[in-house]
C-alpha cells in the first residue's frame, strides 16, 4: 500500500492503495463515485470509462499508479442533474437510455472523441464507439443524442430544446 494522489473532477484526493489497483476501484469504491462502473473488468464494454488527460480510458484495466498527476474527469464531473453538460442534456432530451448502466461509457467515449474531432462524420463516430456496449440497445436514441451534441458544437448553436 502506498499514498497515491489523484486529481478527479478538479479536486485532489490522497488515497492509501496498492499501486497495481485498477483506477476504477479508487474512483467507484474509495471515492464512492457513481459514474464509473464495473461492467466486465476486461476493458471490453466501456462501463468503467473516465476521461484522463482528454482521452477516454478504460479504468478497469488501468493501474491507479499510471493516473497519478493526470486530470481525471468522470461522468459526474461534467454536469449535474439540475445543470447537465450539453452532451448530458442531449441524452436527457432524447431519452437515450433504458437501464442507464452503459451511459457512463457511451457519453464519455463520445465526448472525448468529439472534443478532439468536432467535425467527425457518423461512420467515424461509430468507429469510435465500436468497443462500447449498450445491452438495452438504446442505440438509435444514443446516436441521435450524440449528433445533437456534435451539431451544437460545430456550429456553436444554442442547444436545441
Amino acid at each position, binding site marked *: 500500500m502506498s499514498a497515491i494522489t489523484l486529481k478527479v473532477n478538479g479536486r485532489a484526493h490522497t488515497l492509501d492503495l496498492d499501486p497495481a489497483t485498477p483506477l476504477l476501484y479508487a474512483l467507484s469504491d474509495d471515492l464512492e463515485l457513481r459514474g464509473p462502473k464495473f*461492467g466486465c473488468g*476486461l476493458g471490453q464494454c466501456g462501463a468503467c470509462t473516465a476521461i484522463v488527460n482528454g482521452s477516454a480510458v478504460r479504468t478497469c484495466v488501468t493501474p491507479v499508479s499510471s493516473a497519478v498527476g493526470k486530470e481525471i474527469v468522470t461522468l459526474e464531473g461534467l454536469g449535474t442533474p439540475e445543470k447537465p453538460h450539453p452532451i448530458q442534456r442531449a441524452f436527457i432530451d432524447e431519452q437515450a437510455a433504458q437501464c442507464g448502466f452503459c451511459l457512463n461509457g457511451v457519453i464519455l467515449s463520445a465526448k472525448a472523441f468529439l472534443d478532439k474531432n468536432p467535425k467527425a462524420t457518423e461512420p467515424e463516430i461509430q468507429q469510435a464507439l465500436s468497443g462500447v456496449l449498450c445491452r438495452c440497445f438504446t442505440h438509435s436514441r444514443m446516436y441521435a443524442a450524440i449528433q445533437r451534441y456534435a451539431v451544437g458544437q460545430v456550429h456553436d448553436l444554442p442547444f436545441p430544446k
Partner: protein
Amino acid sequence: MKSMLTAEARSVLNRRGFLKSAGALIVGFRFVGEPPARAQFGQAALSGSPPADQLDSWIAIGADGRVTAFTGKEELGQGISTAQQQLVAEELSVPFERVTLIYCDTALTPDQAYTSGSQSHPTNFNHANLALAAATAREALLKMAAQRLGAPVEQLTAAAGVIGVKGDASKKVSYGDLTAGKKLNLALDKNAKRKPVSEWTVLGKPIGRPDMPAMAAGQFEYVHNVRLPGMLHGRVVRPPVVGATIISVDDSSVAGLPGLVKVVVKKNFIGVVAEKPWQAMQAAEKLKVNWTAGSGLPKQSEFYDSLLRQPSRDALMVDSKDTSQALAAAPVTLKSTYLHPYQMHGSMGSSCAVADVQGDRATLYSPTQGVWYQRSTGAMILGLKPENVHVIFRRGAGCYGLNGADTVSYDAMILSQAVGKPVRVQLSRKDEMAWENYGNAWRIEERAGLDAQGNIVAWEHEAWTPGLGNRPGPATPGNVITGMLLGFGPAPFSPAAAQPPRAYNNNSNGIPSYVAGNVGGSVLGIGGGTGTVKSEKVLVHNVVSPFWTGPLRSPARLQNTFAHESFMDELAARAKADPVEFRLRHLRNERVIGVLTGAAKAAKWETRPSPKPASPKTGIASGRGVACVAYEGDNGYTGIVVDVEVDQDTGKIAVKRMWVAIDAGPISNPDGLRNQAEGGALQGMSRALGEEVTWDDQKVTSVDWRTYHSLPLGFAIPKIECVLLDRPDEEATGAGETAITVIAPAIGNAIFDATGVRLRQIPLTAERVKAALAARA
C-alpha cells in the same frame, strides 16, 4: 454516508401516518446509511407486506398534498415507473411531479410477486391493483369534499389536487386539507370509476423519465452504489467446470493477503470477503481449491439431435386429433426444423447485491425481479425466519429476465452471515456468464399441408427444449447456481406422457397465430386461437438441460415465433402467395391483423410472392421480410417489416430499415412504448445475428464480450420507424417483449426474399449464410 432515500423515505412515512400512528412500523427497518440500531427492530414491520386489498397499502396523501404510491412492480429500465407515476397522477387528478413512487420493498409495498412476463402494464393499469387504488382514493376524496363543502359529489370537480364546486369558485378544498395526512382506512372499491381515456391529460403523454437526469449525470444510485457503514466486499469462487464439487480448499494459499477477512466454504459454495473489492478479487483468484472432475457436457455440434433421445416430460397444447390424416390427404406438405441456441441475458454490469445479516435478522439490497421470493428463499439459505428478512429492491444493470440478480443476492447474504458485517458482492464477468440461467435452447419441427388453392389445411408443431432451474419461487433457492452449491436442488425432473389439453392457453406462443385453437376432441370448430386452420397439433417435449435456464426476454415465445413465422413464409412461398396476404388469409383476430397491416402499410409493402424476382446471384442482394405475433396469445401485438442487404460474397447481413407496429392497448406513455419497441427490435437483431452460448466438453466457453457476440454501438443501426396503434377501448397489455419476438423471423424471411435461401438456425451468422448460399447452386 450518502443516501438519496433517507430523507425522502422519512417524509413518505410521515405522509403515510406511520410516524404518528404506527410506531412499531417505522422502527421496523432502517435505510441505507443509517447505523445499525439492533434494539429498535420491531417485529411488526417485517411480518408481511401491506395487504393488497387496502387502499392505504397503495396510496398515501400527505398533509402537504404530496401523493406517495406504493407498487410491487419495479423499474428495471423499461420505464414502467414513469408510466405508473402518470397513472396515479391521472386517476387522482394531481400533477405528475406531486407523485412519488416507491416500489418493491418487502416492508413497504404490496406483494405483487415478480416484475416480469410483460405483466406490469396489464396488472396495474387495468381495473385492479394500483389503478383501482388511485381511482378508489379519488372517489373517497370526492365524498369527503362533498361533506366539507356541502355540495353533492356530482357538482364537484377535481384538478391539481384541489376539489371545487362547479359554478362556485369560492368553494374549494385541497387533498391535503381533506386528509390532514391521515390514512383513509378503506378497502379497494371494485366499483370505483376510472377516468376515461378521452379525459386523460397526464397518461398517454410522452413524459420524460424522472430518473434520466441523474442517470445521465452519473448520480443515480444503482445497487452497485449502495454503501453501508463497515461494509466489506465479497467475491465467489465457482467450480471450474460443470458438475465439479469441492475436495479441499487450501486457506493457506491466501493467508496474509492484504485486506482479506475470511474464506467462506459451505458445502460446494466458496467465497472470500475482504476490505476492498480489488483485494477480494485477488484473493478469489489466488485461492487454491481442489475440485473433482466435472460431469462432462454433450458435444455442441450434436446437441440439437441429442435432445431427441432424452427422456421427456410432454405437453399437448392443442390437438384436433386429425392432423395425421389431414397431412396425408393434403396435396402438398412441408416440413422444416428450426434451431435456436441458448442465449444469455448478458447484463451490462455483472450482478451485484449488498446484504447485512446480523444475528437472526437480515437486510438485503437486491436487483431481483421478485423481492418477496428472495425474502422467503433467502431465509431458507440463511436459516432465518422469512419475517426477519427485509428485501429492498435497488436497480441493477438491465436484466431482461433471470440474470445473476438472485444468485448474487444469495452470495451476499451467505458471506455477510459468515462475517457478521454488511457485504457487497459483484460477480466477475465470467462468473456471471458461465453460470447464469440462460434462455432455453429449442429444436422445433413444423409440418403443414396445403390444399389445391394453397390454403393451409393442417399444422403440426413439435418442439424439444432443455431446462434446469428457473426463477426462485416461494421455496426454491435451488433454481439458481448458488442455491445448488449450498445444497438445495432444482425441482426433480420426472418424464411424463402428454395429457390431453384442457383449456386454450397460448402463454408460450407454442400455438401458431394461424390455427383455430381447438384444445381437444375431434369436433372441428373455431377455438380460442387467432387463426383459421382447424386441423392442428402442438406438442412440446421438455428435457433436462446441462446448463441453468430461466426466463430471458420473451422466453419460449421468441423461439416459437421464429419457427412459426419463418415456416409461414415458407408456406406462402410454396403457395406462390404474397407473405402478408397469405398471413391475412389465415388470421381472424383484429389486433394481429392490425399490427400486420400497420407495419406493411408503413413500409409501403409491395404485394408479390418471395423470393424477389431477378435478384442478383452475386454481390449485394436486397430483400424484405415480415413477421407478426399476438404475444402470449393476447398480451400485446406486434408486426414488423425489415429491409435487409445480403452480401453474397461474405455472407454478411445488413439490416437497413425496420417498421414496427405495436398495440399494447391504451398507450400510457408513447415515448416509453417507442423506446421499448426500438430497443426490443435491436436487441432481437443482436440475438438473431450473433448471440450464442458456446461450450467445450467440460465448461461454457462464451464467458466475456469477445466470446459472446453482442452488437456494439459501432454497428450500422437500421432506421426504425414505429407505428403506435392506440386502442383506448381495449385492456392494457404487455409491450416490452413484443418487438424482440418478431425480428429474427423477419430478417430470415428478408434473406429468403433477397436470395431464395432459407436459414433455419439462429444465430444467422455470415458463415451460415455463406454456406447456405454455396448450397443454393
